[in-house]
């Protein structure tokens, strides 16, 4: 759930972070608690609260962030793949810039791919000289 927490923290507290890199993340909690819903669940589900977010403070903050949502299309990547695509559409509608990166069918929900992805995104995003 690391990607979920990274994204949830950014979307809830955008003033505190420069951005987020969410790898193979869910953006709602239905996988864990099915259809249970209350205000805590709602406000910890970017997939649910972002479409209704109209507060200009939050929207302006989020538009200045570096947002990377990445996911593979290989084994064990559902429902993360579906939810990443849903987030892409929500962010597009909200005019919040984001780098949505859908990796290939060989990219599984597992550490070897995250080992490739995290340095890849950091090196692309950091202004400091690449070390590779």
């Amino acid at each position, binding site marked *: 759930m*690391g990607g979920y927490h990274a994204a949830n923290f950014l979307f809830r507290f955008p003033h505190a972070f420069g951005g987020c890199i969410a790898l193979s993340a869910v953006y709602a909690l239905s996988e864990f608690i099915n259809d*249970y819903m209350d205000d805590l669940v709602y406000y910890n589900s970017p997939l649910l609260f972002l479409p209704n977010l109209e507060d200009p403070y939050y929207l302006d903050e989020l538009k200045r962030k570096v947002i990377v949502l990445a996911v593979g299309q290989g084994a064990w990547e559902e429902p993360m793949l579906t939810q990443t695509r849903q987030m892409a559409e929500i962010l597009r509608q909200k005019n919040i810039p984001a780098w949505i990166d859908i990796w290939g069918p060989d990219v599984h929900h597992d550490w070897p791919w995250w080992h490739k992805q995290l340095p890849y995104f950091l090196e692309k995003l*950091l202004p400091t000289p690449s070390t590779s």
Partner: protein
Amino acid sequence: MQVTHHTWYSPHLSKDMGLNHYGQQGQPVLAFPAQEGNHRNFEDFGMIAALRPLIESGAIQLFTVDSVDGESWTAKDLHPVNAACAMRPMYAISWTRSYPLFATTRTSPSGLQG
């Protein structure tokens, strides 16, 4: 690579919480573990090794924290309302304990900072 371990007792969770700080300079990055993982998760599963060049060159410094997923969202024996409530201290703790460490390391504005 410099690794600094922090630990504190959380009265909210009635247990020790841990945090590892890898590196000394560069863009601070707060990292959350995979499901039900802890602050050693990135190291145990090879992510620190994958990030070693970026950490050792001073491009980034990484803060890894504990999750309480297993006591909240993914707890099989909890009613969802209790799971939701159990999650709150984690965010409060991540915020009040990890963030000051994270924030004090902020350097000049860069691509990942607001």
